[in-house]
């Protein structure tokens, strides 16, 4: 394949001062009045020493329900002093994958932070969804323990949590998208 006429701009770290563009309300995807199955998605990010990552920008994006005037389908949240983030959003449904495959309900997550020259992307799936067993992305991850790093657990009514470990034991599986 011929080289493209232009080459994508190099990524650089978001650094420790990205909060200058932070708007805390962006963590609430229901702020424009979206209706539907509301859920809370929380998690904690830790580094290779097990310490909380306290200056990250966590972004979520979901293709379902579709983006609309009342639902941005995108959110951004800072991690707190304990490395935790929290979003309010709508529970996604299945979306099409390649060919005739259906993808299990999922939310894309990108972690941006000081020390990350490129953002890290992963996905959040929901425990006990029947489609998880045949999801085309989860199926690319061979080990059940590795797959488990993408599967959020319920912590209450309509509340889900997924911890993200950047490095080391139980390191989260990140995706090259």
């Amino acid at each position, binding site marked *: 394949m011929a080289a493209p006429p232009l080459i*994508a701009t190099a990524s*650089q770290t978001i650094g420790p001062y990205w909060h200058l563009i932070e708007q805390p309300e962006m963590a609430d995807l229901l702020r424009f009045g979206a209706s539907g199955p509301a859920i809370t998605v929380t998690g904690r990010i830790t580094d290779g020493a097990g310490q909380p990552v306290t200056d990250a920008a966590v972004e979520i994006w979901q293709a379902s329900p579709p983006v609309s005037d009342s639902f941005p389908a995108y959110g951004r949240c800072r991690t707190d002093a304990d490395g935790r983030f929290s979003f309010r959003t709508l529970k996604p449904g299945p979306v099409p994958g390649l060919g005739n495959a259906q*993808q299990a309900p999922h939310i894309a997550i990108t972690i941006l932070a000081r020390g990350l020259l490129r953002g890290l992307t992963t996905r959040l799936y929901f425990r006990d969804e029947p489609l998880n067993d045949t999801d085309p992305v989860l199926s690319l991850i061979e080990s059940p323990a590795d797959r488990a790093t993408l599967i959020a657990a319920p912590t209450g009514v309509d509340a889900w949590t997924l911890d993200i470990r950047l490095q080391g034991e139980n390191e989260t599986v990140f995706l090259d998208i």
Partner: protein
Amino acid sequence: MTVDGTGFRPLQPGTQPANDTPAYGSTRLRHPTRKPVRIPHSVTEATGPVLSPAHFPPMPDLSTVTGAPAMGERIIIRGRVMDEDGRPIPNTIVEIWQANAAGRYDHPGDTHDAPLDPHFHGEGRVFTDADGWYQFATIKPGAYPWGNHDNAWRPNHIHYSLFGTGFGQRLITQMYFPGDPLLPLDPIFLATPDAAARDRLIARFDLATTRPGWALGYRFDFVLRGRNATPMENR
């Protein structure tokens, strides 16, 4: 929003920094040790958020946010947002943040002993026009010391965040200035292996962008990943 199910082409080898970059100390405990799993693009990666001016009002002049001018050398930055096929990306948000002229961020985490400027905050936001052009005014950010290594200083730089048309095009980057003697010493700038890719992070002085009697001008273009030629699903 583009919902054609078309994914993005892989990035060109060497043109992006690696997260495992020992010279940049903060990477040490934060870079994953395992190779990321390559996945085919689906609607999740091929489509993306649309941040509109209705929800995010433009802030195109960082140099005058209180009514009084900020301290420092006023500059205009202008350029185009395109994909790798040279197609302009219209109506897309460009988020901007930076240090003040003294090299200090208006951020509680920045403890550098340089003055804050009550007339400068360092946050901006613009949208590209129908042909992908953007422009904003600001002041030239100062260099500042950081704790990465002995006598480490960041070169003058402005931070950017872009979304493009799909989540797979998301870009966070930094723009540098021509002739900065700190560039060959900066591990963040140097983290990109390809020299030409690094040089594309440096704005160029552009007399045509200058506004006579008011501000010098610089040109800086962004290139986001190109789309695959053929749809990847439901053919």
